[in-house]
């Protein structure tokens, strides 16, 4: 924790303005917006795997996309080594992107259906001039072997592959650029468990061999637990808890983390919970509750939660944004 992080995210915010009618605009009504990211702080250490979990719409993808500059954040700062990421332009940005690669969730739409795997890889190599044309073929073979695809795969189109194989292609394409950091957004969510394990193994192996730093965005808690060194839990655009993996799963601090862990079905038929872990729907992202966003579904909510937004506090190795922990007299729920 003392080493200088590879990537440091400070106060990152991003809102998507909701469509607003002309009359409303003429009447001067305030513009409503989806607050996809709200004052997010995170740091990633070199070589570590940081898991990011949270319910649908909590901003995981937006965070990932802001980090690779697919989306422009509204506020905040992202420091990558010495680079001020959010201010990079043109060639500098492309050079940064080469080092920080993203792998996408959807194995079906993330590959151009009209290019062969070989063409895709060759393009990546030649655009960034990573290999002279003569050596590209060899490098392509190397990459395919690296991700466990047969050499003939270079001549095939995406539709000729299974979902798991396509994800391998996506990984190969990202690796072609020899990045330091991979951001994997729901990399295996679309895959069957039996295939999931293959891709996860690949990721583990690559990380080992290439010393990659990985941001692993997922909603499968079991997977995140298996892969990550640390885990960040998000809720409605905010990071509510960051902790070392074992710590988080053994003793979740934030009530939302607790609920999330309780809701995940365990594989033991003997241990069945009776009551729902959490009640109520996710609030509309257009209308995030004041104070603590989770208070509307939180069994422990009290007055202060509505009035004041909790700030991240260190609680036994974890960072938790919850008033239960910020007030000295509060009792830690079990």
């Amino acid at each position, binding site marked *: 924790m003392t080493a200088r992080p590879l990537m440091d995210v400070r106060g990152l915010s991003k809102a998507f303005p909701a469509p607003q009618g002309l009359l409303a605009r003429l009447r001067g009504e305030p513009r409503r917006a989806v607050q996809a990211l709200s004052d997010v702080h995170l740091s990633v250490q070199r070589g570590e795997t940081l898991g990011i979990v949270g319910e649908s719409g909590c901003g995981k993808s937006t965070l990932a996309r802001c980090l690779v500059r697919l989306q422009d954040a509204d506020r905040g700062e992202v420091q990558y080594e010495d680079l001020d990421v959010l201010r990079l332009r043109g060639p500098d940005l492309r050079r940064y992107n080469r080092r920080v690669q993203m792998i*996408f969730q959807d194995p079906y739409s*993330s590959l*151009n259906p009209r*290019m062969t795997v070989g063409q895709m890889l060759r*393009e990546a190599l030649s655009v960034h001039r990573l290999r002279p044309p003569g050596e590209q073929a060899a490098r392509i073979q190397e990459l395919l072997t690296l991700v466990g695809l047969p050499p003939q795969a270079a001549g095939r189109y995406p*539709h*000729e592959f299974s979902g798991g194989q396509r994800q391998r292609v996506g990984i190969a394409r990202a690796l072609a650029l020899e990045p330091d950091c991979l951001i994997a957004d729901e990399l295996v969510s679309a895959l069957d468990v039996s295939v999931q394990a293959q891709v996860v193994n690949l990721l583990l192996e690559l990380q080992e061999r290439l010393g990659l730093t990985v941001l692993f965005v997922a909603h499968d808690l079991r997977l995140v637990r298996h892969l990550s060194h640390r885990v960040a839990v998000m809720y409605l655009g905010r990071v509510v808890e960051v902790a070392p993996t074992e710590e988080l799963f053994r003793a979740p601090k934030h009530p939302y983390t607790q609920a999330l862990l309780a809701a995940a079905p365990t594989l033991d038929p003997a241990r069945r919970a009776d009551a729902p872990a959490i009640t109520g729907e996710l609030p509309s992202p257009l209308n995030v509750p004041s104070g603590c966003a989770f208070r509307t579904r939180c069994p422990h909510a009290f007055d202060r939660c509505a009035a004041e937004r909790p700030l991240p506090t260190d609680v036994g190795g974890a960072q938790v944004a919850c008033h239960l922990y910020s007030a000295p007299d509060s009792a830690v729920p079990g």
Partner: protein
Amino acid sequence: MTAALTPAAPAAPRARRRWPKPTLLIGLLLLALLLIAALFPTQLAPFSPTEFDYNAILQGPTAKHPFGTDNFGRDVLSRVIYGTRIDLQIALFTTLFPFIFGTLLGAVTGYAGRWSDALVGRVADLVVVFPFLVLVIAIVAVLGPGLTNLYVAVSAVGWVSYWRLTRGEVLTQKKAEYAQAGRVLGYSPARILLRHLLPNAVTPAIVYLMTDMSLGILLGASLGYLGLGAQPPTPEWGVMVADGKNFMATAWWISTFPGLALTLAGVTFSLIGDGLADVLRPRT
């Protein structure tokens, strides 16, 4: 693609090569027929398409004139054969510019969005709400009638459809993850647009192109009715149908055979369009 390729260990069921449906094959076959007629009219046609024969005026179909003769004694079969080139040319030239221009513009404004999109949108509005006939007649009146001017007039308007189609498709495609991947991979916008988006976004435009070709021929025929189409003695099918309308009661063959030729061309383009839609659909 190598047929010898066997699925390696963790391989998916190899998707079968999708053979073009019979529609496309028939369509291409008919097109080949039309192209032969267009390329070798001299060899195929028994008579000159323009030479009068005062001794053979308004003769019904016979062995010598299988499609009969017209009011100048010209052989209708020969005229239909010679007309193929003209009508295919109409089909091509009424759509070529709109297709290229509209598609590229649609790709660019769909991708760039903002003011370029808004500006082109307004111009498209103007073109669409402007009565087409006024425009056509105006252009024809300025440049004189004839096919070139038909092309100019149609081009001035026709690009809008392609622009719309491609723009809409690019808007959809640019949200697809492969397009975003291109950005993360550090590709330039031009590369993403031309290498990645356009090939995937152009299918509806190509399919529409086929419909548009038959519409182009029909438009030529309609303008022929108003006297603004092809010039005599050019044997153009639409004009031939229009010329034959006074003889419908007494010499049905004059308008019927070119009418059949028009239908044949329409069916050809439609079959190819349907077939292409099938073949060009990206496989997933």
